[in-house]
């Protein structure tokens, strides 16, 4: 993260412990921590999910206030450009492996806000989405199903959004710059994260 804003390339340690990888995969599946960032109206369905009726803590899922420790980013609903900036920065602050679950119709194609001037139409162009749930608003069961799908994908290794983001960083970066204008990171993100 310390490299952000200099040349736009994020450096990664690529050391992988091949021996322990199956164990880690299992652990990743069983302990998904959600970044506490409700990005839209879908945030209203997170408290029911966390409480008695649905209780996702059974599966080791719990909200975590710090993006550094988070694994799962729930994009709960439509994304406005103003939020997308924060989403991108938060996503880049999270440490690999990290997963994105897009929640509702709006991140897929705009949903009811398909003609709104302030709603991002295709979230997939700006950050990699691993699993998307359709519906407005998706029922908690649907969200649970999405999380289960995410767990399955983590297990068989197809939840590779973080790898795609790293490999196709140019593409994502270009789309982001097209939307926000060049140099938005230096202008704005530096102010939010002055200590980095």
């Amino acid at each position, binding site marked *: 993260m310390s490299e952000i804003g200099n040349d736009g390339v994020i450096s990664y340690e690529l050391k992988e412990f091949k021996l322990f990888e199956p164990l880690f995969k299992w652990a990743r599946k069983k302990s998904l921590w959600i*970044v*506490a*960032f*409700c*990005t*839209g*109206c879908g*945030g*209203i*369905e997170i*408290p*029911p999910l*966390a*409480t*008695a*009726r649905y209780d996702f803590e059974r599966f080791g899922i719990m*909200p975590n*206030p710090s*993006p550094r420790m988070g694994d799962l980013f729930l994009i709960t609903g*439509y994304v*406005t450009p*103003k*939020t997308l900036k*924060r989403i991108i920065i*938060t996503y880049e602050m999270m440490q690999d492996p990290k997963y994105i679950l897009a929640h509702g119709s709006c991140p897929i194609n705009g949903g*009811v*806000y398909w*003609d*709104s*001037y*302030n*709603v991002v139409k295709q979230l997939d162009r700006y950050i990699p989405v691993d699993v998307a749930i359709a519906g*407005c*608003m998706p*029922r908690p069961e649907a969200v649970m199903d999405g999380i289960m799908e995410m767990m399955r994908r983590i297990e068989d290794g197809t939840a590779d959004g973080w790898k795609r983001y790293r490999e196709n960083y140019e593409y994502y970066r270009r789309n982001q710059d097209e939307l926000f204008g060049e140099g938005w990171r230096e202008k704005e993100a530096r*102010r*939010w994260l*002055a200590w980095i």
Partner: protein
Amino acid sequence: MADLEVPNELRREAKEHDMYLHPIDRDTYELFFGPQHMATENFSIILKMDGNRIEKAIVNPGFLHRGFEKLAEGRPYFTNIALLLRICVPESDVPENIYSMAVDEIVGWEVPERAIWIRTTVLEMARVSAWMFWIMGFGNEIGLYTPGQWAAAYRERFMRLYEELTGGRVYHIYTVPGGVRRDIPGDRWLRQLRDTVEYVKGKMKDFDEILFDNYITFERTEGVGVMDKRFALKHAVTGPNLRATGVPYDVRKDDPYYLYDQLDFEVPVLKEGDSLARVLIRRYELEQDLYILEQLLDMGPPSGPYMVQDARLKALPRFKPPKGDAYAHVESTKGDFGAYVVSDGSHKPYRVHVRGPSQSHGVTVLEELLKGARLADVPVILKTLDNCPPDIDR
């Protein structure tokens, strides 16, 4: 279009007002509170801190702006219901109702009695479930997770009833101009509602013991974020926040809509105007709302149609109300929620303007109250004001 530029002198003034353009002094620092934060939910406050005290707070909303008012101008009257209810997520029935009331007034429809009863019941259910949500939010902000978890589970009971009545959990798309979209499923639903109300009423004691009568809750909220009556009126603070300063203004009493002039309920008023008063007011109101629901159930739904009988409703997408405008408002848990609808006689509204209660207490009032507060008070003030960011952004 004529591009209207802001004059330069205005712009410079605006810049000086925004403190984040100034270099940070050494003994003070700035804190970006939200939107990635547990307390603020889609809302950002830029705090200029001096140690543990807040010197200045700048509210930075807009993370949820979808341009509803513009979108509503491009959609027919009845389609707008499915759009506008998204303004207030925790109680989505409120925007439905204000919009429907305003259109009813423009058209001149007398909504049938049965529909009125259903609308009142739905609104009160929305209020109770919003209070449950608020208990969860407030508990989480001050670090007491237990009652919140219970409350969110009780809210699920109302969600189940909503599902049976309307088909939706969060967004109901139920109240439409001229009535409601469908009838009550049957007497079983009414019985279930009564059971739920009884159940939640029985749980009030638990909430009292653990949250409202807790020594540390008092410590945390007493004397925090005090406003006086004059300040609240000048800042158009409404709802429980205004009643906590000693003004007995409740839309249900002062501008009665639906069945509220036939119902017997009290408007709790406290004088202190601090966070504790706001917390307690909300607790009393929850009790009152449960009482209102009981009265409504005792009254029972009147028989008759649930939708107004009008030939124009045959061709809904091309439904055209006459020219005119109307302002309707209801009492939501956050305050006075109003909508101003202008019709130019076409099949789309000419202008829909929604007044969210957080618009008044979520920006200037919040900035004023945060001045001089401690960092630990920020979530308390935010939650006792019951700030709802989508109201501000729309």
